[in-house]
């Protein structure tokens, strides 16, 4: 159905819900590239005023991508939980936004609401919020997941140790891991992006991680971020797979461009759960997402990039993941042009993910052709720390030498933990103290020459 709004004698007419959502979205280069952005500042606010008055019930009757042609739409509508939705079923988008910010929407109530909210509803509410409001609501959410430790508790911030090497060299990877561990990083996961998806190479990285973890009895999980089909093959060959990783998107066609679909993810989830390698829980999936991936694959169906992104969270939550993060600034300036757009998008993604019940982390990052630098990342990191982000990345010196982009460093994690009083996952924090890496207050102890972790690196051949 079409929606209309009159501002000073000018009538704005929006053909359908997806058009209102796109035009209401804060400016970003990807929506301009797609030809979906508002043409004027006034049109954008006209769309926001229009969006505010749309009943949430309309979202259940008007799919932004047709039910018949998209399995993600079918997933969203078929798994919508009517009882959870009931308390907000009479709201408009604007009323939802106001209510989310009110004192009555507390942590427990938001947790119970998650299954009743669709990605499009979350995206719509986010478009009516300023940055501080995205932070304020996300901070009230708490999504806790478990495998060998407990991630996402309020007051805690975990890190994915990302020890990538351009040639997947075992000693090079081990050197970065040891450096990271000695800086207190790695409680979300020790996760390698392999330079090649070759199963033998992936397997040898998996085995190396598993030996290291067991040797030092580290209460964390490991992952080599290969394609899900490679992981499935390795699971069937009894390789030590803790977590199965996959990049996912918010439309069936986006996922097809990644070489996946929902049945394949289901198969991978079941196979990984069956390994029962978790000790305190069995959340076994790790998903990465990012605004712009649908447009980049020519698979956005005229839906704006933030709404497409939120729809990816419906895919993620079906499989009860341990970790989900948007790789927000990786995609480049044609989708998110500068620090301002990257920061806004990251706060939207974190908010939408948390509201939908996901254990949301964030790769606070940028590429060299984006109008951004470490100062922008410092701002975003601090904002996400306040917002209660579950985890961030830990990359040596913030410089990923394999993927050629900049993320957050081990030092950055120490900074944000220190200024905001955040702590690692409890099990990992205990280990850091036992290893005499940190003291009880979480401060790094003076680094020692003969720490036994340093011996780990020499185990590996060049």
């Amino acid at each position, binding site marked *: 159905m079409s929606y209309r709004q009159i501002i000073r004698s000018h009538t704005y007419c929006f053909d359908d819900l997806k058009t209102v959502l796109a035009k209401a979205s804060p400016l970003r280069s990807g929506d301009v590239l797609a030809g979906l952005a508002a043409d004027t500042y006034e049109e954008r606010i006209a769309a926001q005023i229009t969006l505010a008055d749309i009943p949430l019930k309309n979202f259940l009757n008007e799919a932004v991508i047709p039910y018949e042609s998209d399995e993600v739409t079918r997933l969203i509508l078929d798994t919508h939980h009517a009882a959870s939705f009931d308390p907000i079923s009479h709201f408009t988008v604007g009323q939802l936004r106001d209510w989310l910010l009110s004192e009555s929407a507390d942590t427990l109530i938001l947790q119970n609401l998650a299954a009743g909210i669709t990605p499009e509803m979350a995206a719509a509410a986010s478009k009516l919020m300023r940055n501080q409001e995205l932070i304020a609501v996300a901070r009230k959410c708490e999504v806790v997941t478990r495998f060998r430790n407990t991630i996402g508790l309020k007051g805690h911030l975990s890190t994915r140790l990302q020890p990538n090497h351009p040639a997947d060299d075992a*000693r090079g990877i081990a050197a970065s891991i040891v*450096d990271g561990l000695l800086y207190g990083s790695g409680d979300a996961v020790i996760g390698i992006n392999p330079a090649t998806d070759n199963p033998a190479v992936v397997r040898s990285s998996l085995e190396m991680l598993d030996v290291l973890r067991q040797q030092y009895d580290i209460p964390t999980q490991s992952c080599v971020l290969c394609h899900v089909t490679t992981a499935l093959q390795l699971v069937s060959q009894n390789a030590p797979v803790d977590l199965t990783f996959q990049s996912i998107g918010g439309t069936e066609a986006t996922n097809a461009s990644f070489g996946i679909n929902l049945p394949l993810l289901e198969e991978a989830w079941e196979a990984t759960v069956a390994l029962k390698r978790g000790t305190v829980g069995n959340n076994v999936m790790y998903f990465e997402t990012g605004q712009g991936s649908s447009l980049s694959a020519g698979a956005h169906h005229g839906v704006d990039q933030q709404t497409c992104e939120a729809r990816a969270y419906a895919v993620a939550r079906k499989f009860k993941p341990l970790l989900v993060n948007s790789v927000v600034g990786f995609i480049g300036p044609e989708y998110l042009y500068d620090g301002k757009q990257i920061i806004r998008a990251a706060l939207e993604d974190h908010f939408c993910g948390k509201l939908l019940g996901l254990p949301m982390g964030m790769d606070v990052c940028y590429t*060299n*052709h984006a109008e951004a630098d470490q100062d922008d990342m410092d701002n975003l990191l601090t904002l996400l720390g306040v917002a209660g982000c579950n985890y961030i990345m830990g990359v040596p010196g913030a*410089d990923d030498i394999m993927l*050629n982009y900049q993320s957050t460093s081990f*030092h950055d994690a120490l900074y944000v933990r220190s200024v905001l009083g955040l702590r690692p996952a409890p099990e990992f924090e205990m280990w850091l103290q036992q290893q005499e890496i940190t003291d009880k207050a979480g401060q790094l102890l003076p680094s020692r020459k003969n720490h036994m972790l340093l011996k780990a690196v020499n185990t590996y051949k060049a």
Partner: protein
Amino acid sequence: MEHLPKLADLENSSADPWSSLKAFTSARIALGRTGTSVPLKESLAFKLAHAHARDAVYSVLQLEKIAKELQLLNLPFILVQSQANNRQDYLQRPDLGRKLNFSSREQLATLSADECDIAIIIADGLSATAINEHAIPLLHFLLPKLQQAGFTLAPVTIVERARVAVSDETGQLLKAKLSLILIGERPGLSSPNSLGAYFTYAPKPGLTDESRNCISNIRPHGLPYDLAADKIFYLIQEASRKQLTGVALKDEMDLLQG
């Protein structure tokens, strides 16, 4: 005053005693720390690397120098532009960087070129620095091989503010069987000047990346000019023989040599 530590002591106190691990990776490990921060020396080293990368993104082609050097190689050339009017446009609208602007298209069309084997295209991409430094030295190795093998060449096209796919339209207008574009790659912190070579058989607008082959990281500290030229020449020969490029064209050069 005597209780204040000397600067040298401060530097020592922030160092990590595992700097020997740096031998195993070029990752920024064992940086040391002051509080939770990276020590200044390492912080400035990072900023310098980023400055090089940023400058590369905004660098421009040294047209006079390139023109002079192409003349020395006896290569006629044409200078054209994409539809992106400035760098900002270029960065936000990759679609515009893939198309020639109207007058450029006219310019190539009115050449009414003879059919030829290869159209060589030189484009700034995301690092004109890479082109300024490496395009001509690479051609010094590559050209003699192509000429000796009897390949006919279109005039070299220099395209400003271009993406890889501009080579489709350019190659087609020049009636080339294969287009070869030398283009500046997205700068990394450790490589602000990396050159990529992409080639496409039967170029025409609308092709996507699976129709091409790519040799990347061409620079003295990455893939050196002579090896890059060997690889490109080998693959171009294979492409001409099989009349295709893309996923079906595999780099089996090492197998042949082995």
